[in-house]
């Protein structure tokens, strides 16, 4: 559980794998969405192209220090989150930097990037940035709740806060997954998951014309590149947590890719089916449907 220098290259390796996987996954999912809509869709390497293009672009615009630092915070948050959680169960190599903290660290570090990003966008002076953030925060404050409750139910169930230990407890067959040992908690967590993925129907936050990363009026070029990188990492990092907590973790990279993909698909499918909620609607929705499940899961443990 202590630091060793070798952990650094190992962590970088994880990072490298996840970045690539994230880029491809993102494009793949977009392509699926396009195909469903009878469009051709983007090529699978489109994200790489965008990234390189954006890094290549030169901008000379900044609105101030926080504006400048916003994407830095964002990406730091994504990378940090990924690295604080063990990726592959049973692999010393891919348990990353999880020695520095347990589940709680991961849960709270989620907000690091969000907060920094929100601050950066705020300094742009663009009113829509503020509006988007106010919506996002409002929604997250409720969407996180069932997830947090479920996480805690799981922690109580396994009497540990260590991610590795939780995964360990789920080994030995599908029946040992939290999904089956504690379905209520998982249901609650998955509902929360929908909210936190910022996909329809809970995507009013990133309604494209309303927040700066949509039409990159303010954040563009290299800023956008950082954020794109993060967009490849962050959802995966989050899904890793879900996977570890509820779906038995992953003992190898193929299992990892599969599980992450499937979990991701959940939100995509829901998003295809449902129309968009207004913020207060989604808050109420979480309050009425997801939170009671979370509470139930805690009580039942």
């Amino acid at each position: 559980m202590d630091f060793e220098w070798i952990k650094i290259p190992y962590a970088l390796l994880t990072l490298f794998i996840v970045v690539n996987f994230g880029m491809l996954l993102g494009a793949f999912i977009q392509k699926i969405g396009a195909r469903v809509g009878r469009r051709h869709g983007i090529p699978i390497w489109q994200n790489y192209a965008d990234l390189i293009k954006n890094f290549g672009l030169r901008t000379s615009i900044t609105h101030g220090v926080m504006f400048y630092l916003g994407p830095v915070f964002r990406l730091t948050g994504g990378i940090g989150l990924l690295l604080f959680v063990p990726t592959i169960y049973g692999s010393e190599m891919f348990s990353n930097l999880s020695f520095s903290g347990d589940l709680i660290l991961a849960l709270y570090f989620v907000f690091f990037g969000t907060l920094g990003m929100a601050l950066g966008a705020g300094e742009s002076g663009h009113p829509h940035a503020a509006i988007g953030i106010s919506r996002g925060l409002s929604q997250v404050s409720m969407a996180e709740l069932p997830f947090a409750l479920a996480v805690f139910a799981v922690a109580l169930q396994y009497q540990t806060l260590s991610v590795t230990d939780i995964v360990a407890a789920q080994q030995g067959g599908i029946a040992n997954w939290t999904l089956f040992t504690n379905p209520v908690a998982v249901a609650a967590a998955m509902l929360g998951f929908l909210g936190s993925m910022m996909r329809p129907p809970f995507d009013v936050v990133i309604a494209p014309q309303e927040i700066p990363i949509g039409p990159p009026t303010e954040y563009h070029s290299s800023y956008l590149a950082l954020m794109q990188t993060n967009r490849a990492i962050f959802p995966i990092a989050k899904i890793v947590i879900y996977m570890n907590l509820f779906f038995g973790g992953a003992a190898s990279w193929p299992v990892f890719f599969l599980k992450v993909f499937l979990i991701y698909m959940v939100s995509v499918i829901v998003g295809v089916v449902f129309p968009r909620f207004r913020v207060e609607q989604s808050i109420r929705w979480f309050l009425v449907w997801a939170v009671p499940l979370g509470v139930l899961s805690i009580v039942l443990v």
Partner: protein
Amino acid sequence: MVSPLYLIVLALAAAFLLGLLNPERRGRAYAVTLVALAGMTLISADWLWAFTMEGIDPVDVYTAGAEPPFAINLRMGLAEAALTLLVNLTGLLSALYLKDVLLAGGRRTMAVLLISVMALVGIILTRDLFNLFVFFELVVISSAGLVLLANDKDGGPASGLSLSAGFKYLIVSQFISAFLLLGIIFAYHATGTLNIDGMANASLGLATGGTIAFFLMFMAIVAELKPFPANGWALDIYESAHPAFSAIFSAATGAAALYAVDKLLLIGGAEWLPIATGIGIVTFIAANLFALPQTHDRRLLGYSSIAQTGLVLVVLGQRDLLGDSTPFIAFGLLISHAVAKAGLFWLSGLLKNRQLADWAALRQRPLLVFAFVTFTAMLTGLPPFPGFYAKWELVHQLAGAGQFTLLGLILLGALIEAGYLFRWFGYLMKREAPVETVPCTGHKVGPVLVAVAAGWALAYLWGDLAGGLFGRDNLLLALPLLFALSFLLLDWLPAWIKNSLAIAGMVAFFLLTWGEYDPLRLIFAIIFLIGGALTLLASYSVHGRRIGFYPAAMLMYAGMVMLIRATTSFDFFAAWELLTVGSYFLILRGKHSEPHALSYILFSLGGAFLILAGFALAAAGAPQFDLASLAQVAAPAAPWVFVLLAVGFMTKTAAIGLHIWLPGAHAEAETDVSPMVSGILLKAGLYGMMVLLLAMGKQQLYGVELTHVLLWIAALTALIGNLMAVFQEDAKRLLAYSSIGQMGYALFGLALMNHLGWLMALVFVINHYIYKSMLFLAVGGVAKRTGTREMYKMGGLIRLMPLSFIAVLIGIIAVSGVPPLSGFGGRWVFYNAIMSAEYRLPMVVLFMAGPIAFLYLFRLIYTIFLGQLKDELRRVKEAPFWIVLPQMIYVALLLVFAVVPGLALRHVDAYLNQFFPEGGLHWGGGTIISDYGYWNPVAIMIIVGVIFTTVFALLLIVNRKAQMVKQFNIVFSAERPFRPETTHYAWNFYAPYRKAMGFLTQPFVTRFWDTLADLLHTAGDLGRRLYDGNGQSYGFHFLAFVVIVFFVGGI
């Protein structure tokens, strides 16, 4: 010693001598009057000295060369000496005060005054019933005459009022004296004596008709105490009479009449005590209630006088229960009341207008304001004044004897009284001052100052007495308190000198004593003393003398230090009251803080009373106990003690339901005061909770586990506090609500009653001190520069106030608990703590509160520092150096605490093992390991730092030429904005959130307390209409009073 008879002889001789003087030589007559009164004062003082210092026995003085009961005799004992001294001194000072009036009124007026004082002395000294009657008649007549003094000078619309007041008094006194005479004669018939002691021995009650005879006498004498409802006449007198006479009427007449009742009770015996108690308590409550809607100062004082007298009557009525401590209590209350009331009446004479708000004129004279404060403190029984000791003792004895209803009523009445007195003080400090100048003539200010001096002297004396009786140290000799009080004397110095002295004193005291604390207390000591000194750095930014700030601030700090140093319940409570009062004065200094300071002091005093009751219940009759022995409180009382103390402490931590004072109080306080009252003061409540929980642990009441209830309260507090903070437009109010939420977390930790819960509470204590002080300073600095606290009026200040921005940024990251800063430590400990907790539902609520913090924190930093800069704020400068400096220190502290929390927590963790042996942390190297998880703050800091730096470096490489664009270089809705007002999205920032969650922010609590206050107010307003001003009605009241007491008392 001269015979006490000379008290009477001197006055009479002087009064008669006045008639022989040339009527035009009024100065001479005045001199004679003063000499006589001074002589009487000296005689009394001489006796008092002899009784207290030389310990002589009481002396009986026979007249006419015959022994009692055949001739009238007088008695001079300790009580008599003290009371006559009080009467004579009041008379002398009032005579001084009345100089102009007496000189204008001539020798007859002076004679009346002399005789009035003499008659009061006679009432106190005489041991003969009929003689008592004669003296009472003298008092009545002279009072009716002295009431008229108001006409001579004050004139104006009041003239004629005093005349009718005097007439009403005479009407009622006719009824009274008829009853008294009948009672006396039948008592004489039954016992064959008029001597009080003789009658007491003859057991009057057993003789035929004796009970009714006594009843008549008793009613008559009690009526002189102005009991409810037979007291309308007295109020009219208070309202219309000259204040100097009112001083006598309240202080001296009240004391004498009480003593007469005391003598009568000697005759009546124990079965009359409950009746006295009943009359007293009803009067106490009713008068205080009726005083609430008063706006006329003297009438208010009148109501208050009546209430106080009622309270002393209660004490007399409980004498069988109070036993030997009766004099200590009764005198403590009486003398506080007398000195304070006399002083206040004298003060009222300095002012021209009679509305309470007109007292704002007094602000011109800080010395007089101090006098007012002294008197108010005496009346409300705050330490270190005698009333405090008396209250403590009274409550303890009552609780020890199981008189809970009475106890509750007394505390309720006292709270109401504190309410209107402190409201008045608020007016005095905050209302617009009339243009009139307050005259400062020596003969008028002199008596006031004497009263102030007497108040403090009595405070010392009672401290000494209590020390002797109960083995305590004199409060006034406590070093911190002395230090605080010394700032009263230094108030003429410039603020920066006082500030330096204060900081030096606090640091020095810490250095002197830090070895004495256990780790738990050490944390609080550091926050209170070192932390306090740190916040005081910000006070260097204020120039001038800043009168009144340092005594108040130091009083608060003194109270807090004494609180953690207290080992007995008494010391603890005294410290608690001191810090409450000190902080009240501090809060009141804010520009618009009047109503908030009032609700603060009311909640605090209410809480303090609950604590007092709790301690009293726990003490079970003992005068005090070691705090540690709270653990030994036996079963039936223990849960109630717990409830009382817990609710009391929670008023200070602003738990939900008791929180409504906090937002206003913290928000309206001065820039450098907000951090003190938020960052530091709130911890006092938590400390109290810790002491309580450590000693008493889990308690059950009706099968409900009280810590479980606490958990719910704490969780709801956190939720509502956070939620309310989201919707504030005022930056300081936002922070204030956030404090409520944070205190909820800390309380939750304590209520978990496990090792990590407590550790979490301590982490919150430390963190909250640091970041809330920092945030309040930062926001205060911004508010100072921008001239507003409304966040939507700000925006884009990051470039103008970068240091403040950094402080707020670090602050909000810390508050929100995002790693790597120290707030995360608290969260981590919290999650580990609840892993082993038995109750899960409250946690859900707390979980819900967590993310809400992000909402208000983001709003705070965004609407102030980010977004669009307003035109009118373009010239704003960074906050003053002395406000920024402590912020930067706090930033450093936060970082240090984030990386090495063990520095502060390790020892506490080890210390907590004594109480919660299980679930401690393991501090291995950089990693902190609990039973469930682990956490390595150093590693986190390094990892996040490295990633951040790397990404930042990457961005710098790619985008090193970034240039600042102009403010409006943005495009939205297809146009370029040009006005920051319309572009800065800030007002009602969380509108959709409000739509969804607003139902939780309904001001139920505020409405509840408002309704309660309204109800009391309305009750008082309706009740006082009983006194319709018609003299005949007052006659009805008296007769009704007699009849009611007869039937209710079951005589």
